[in-house]
């Protein structure tokens, strides 16, 4: 520690001398109409040049994961950052194996999306202990690493529940919940948010709360059965728009579009969010705007690589501001983003 302090002090001193020198030189340079050399640029470029970022998404063939990756690459690659992609392809095992291999490959940063709160927790802890910064996206594990960038799922659940309950006013007060995968952070925390709101609304009756496993086909099957049992259902809280296309198809098939309020959430991609809200499939889609999440990740990575902090010592969460996409704003430019244009 004391060594660090001394080094820090000497850096400060050096900086001070440099500043004084610059101030003196600046007058000269300005007088001659020449540009100034910005002294902080080189350390910035040097801190990022040649660094490696490993990206371990749940699967690569989904709008969210593509959007994040594209955003990261667009900002960091021009600075000489190298990317390593390890696609878990929906397999928790493959993902855990990928992270384990990365431990020995030692990239500078691992950007990871957790399939559930437990599986990667120990591995991520080991990664930070061995000097790799870990940035978790959207679905965090029980281990809190340098940075989490993603939706606040509790808030998400609360907002979705509030929207559905609001739509249920004066109706049957029967709602259904279409969960994702029980052990995934995005599903479990959202459910907590929903429960928080439901606790304040004893009049609301949850007639079905099942996990469709992020799978549109399963969601459709469950929604079909639930709607046949309760045709007077007033709302469904769905946990992901990629899965709730199935829920929406069931509502449409039952001829209940507009009668059953469907709230869902997603990354705000044009064809999955805005287009489906416009068509009436979803009544509200809470977007965690993937491009701005990618932007936050880039910021965190840039800062972590320059700061010199030991991985795992500084921790922070960047919760994304949720954008409710409804018929009102679905047609406005900028509400959604498109793959390939991000």
């Amino acid at each position, binding site marked *: 520690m004391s060594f660090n302090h001394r080094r820090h002090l000497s850096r400060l001193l050096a900086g001070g001398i440099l500043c004084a020198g610059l101030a003196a030189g600046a007058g000269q340079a300005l007088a001659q109409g020449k540009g100034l050399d910005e002294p902080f640029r080189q350390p910035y470029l040097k801190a990022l040049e040649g660094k490696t970022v490993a990206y371990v998404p749940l*699967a690569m*063939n*989904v*709008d969210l994961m*593509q959007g994040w990756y594209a955003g990261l690459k667009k900002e960091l690659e021009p600075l000489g950052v190298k990317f390593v992609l390890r696609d878990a*392809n*929906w*397999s928790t095992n493959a993902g855990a194996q990928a992270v384990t291999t990365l431990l020995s490959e030692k990239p500078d940063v691992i950007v990871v999306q957790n399939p559930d709160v437990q599986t990667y927790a120990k591995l991520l802890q080991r990664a930070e202990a061995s000097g790799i910064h870990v940035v978790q996206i959207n679905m965090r594990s029980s281990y809190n690493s340098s940075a989490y960038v993603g939706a606040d799922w509790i808030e998400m659940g609360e907002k979705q529940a509030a929207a559905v309950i609001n739509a249920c006013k004066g109706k049957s007060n029967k709602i259904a919940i279409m969960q994702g995968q*029980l052990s995934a952070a995005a599903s479990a925390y959202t459910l907590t948010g929903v429960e928080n709101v439901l606790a304040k609304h004893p009049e609301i009756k949850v*007639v*079905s*709360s*099942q*996990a*469709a*496993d992020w*799978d*549109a*086909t*399963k969601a*459709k*099957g*469950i929604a*079909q*059965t*639930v709607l*046949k*049992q309760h045709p007077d259902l007033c709302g469904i809280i769905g946990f992901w728009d*990629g899965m709730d*296309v*199935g829920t929406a*198809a069931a509502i449409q*098939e039952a001829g209940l579009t507009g009668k059953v309020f469907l709230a869902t959430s997603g990354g705000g991609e044009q*064809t*999955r969010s805005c287009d489906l809200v416009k068509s009436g499939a979803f009544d509200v889609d809470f977007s965690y705007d993937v491009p701005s999440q990618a932007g936050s990740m880039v910021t965190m990575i840039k800062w972590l690589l320059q700061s010199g902090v030991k991985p795992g010592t500084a921790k922070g969460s960047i919760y994304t501001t949720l954008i409710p996409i409804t018929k009102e704003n679905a047609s406005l430019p900028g509400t959604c983003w498109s*793959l390939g244009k991000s």
Partner: protein
Amino acid sequence: MSSARLSQQTIVFGIFIVLFLVFSLLLPGFFSASNIVALLQNVAILGILGLGMAIVVIGRGIDISMIAALAVPPGLVLQMVNDGYPVSVSVAAALALVIVFGLVNGWLIAYAEVPSLFTTLASGLFLAGLGQVAFFKLDLVPWPPQLDAIAGFGRGSIVGIPMPVVMFGLTILVCAFLLRYTRFGTYLYATGDNPLGARTIGIPTRPLILRQYVFAALIAAFAGMVMAASIGTMQTRIYNSTMIYDVILVVVLGGIGLSGGRGGVLNAVTGTLLIGTLLNGMTILDMSYSAQNLIKGVILLIAILIDSVLNPRNEETAQQGDI
């Protein structure tokens, strides 16, 4: 042997009736016309796949690659049309892919004599991988409006019966006709019962096996188109799911012995109905997904156990690699 076969189907049908009655009495809303329709609709795709699998299993094979054949070729049609290709070209490309896929499966099994379990396990992975690498950008391929003209076979209903159920009925008829009234069907039973014996009496067993896998792949792709039309999108990620076990469950539960040569369309339908009743009842009971899987797993185990007692392996004709 025939009395034993009869008894398994009777047992399963009996279980189905009992389960149906119990649910009807205990679950409010189960025994209503609309719920029965929903029940059938939920298992229509599974039923179509089960029929394709039944044909392969009767011929003493198994086709694990059916889910890949369900996902990739229909996904390809949707993707190509989305990318601006004409509908006819897209459908032709997908059809060619299915037929080539079935032929490769069949050739490996019939001529290279690789056991069907391993062949289709590998080829299914290959096709799924090919789809992911070469065809699809995203796992969800939306149904393009240009295809709405042919969406009729998965969407809407005829006299209150949803189209997927109608398609299931149609597949039942086609398969029943194939198995009962064609030479293909007769040869299939003979080959499944005793492949060497069938060859000895002059049945062209190898081309037969070839056709069997092409047929299974075609049925799977058909089921995929019905599914895509019905949901309005093709979820290509479905090949990662455990759906193939449900298909095997339908077949084995219905009483089509995995050792081949036995069973028929009725067995697959009985199996489908039982699974449909179970799934529907468990959903109404609001059972968790994991609990549902647990119950399905236990039932599959029991069914395989009953199958191996009632249809013991024939030591004279059993081969290495048979299941």
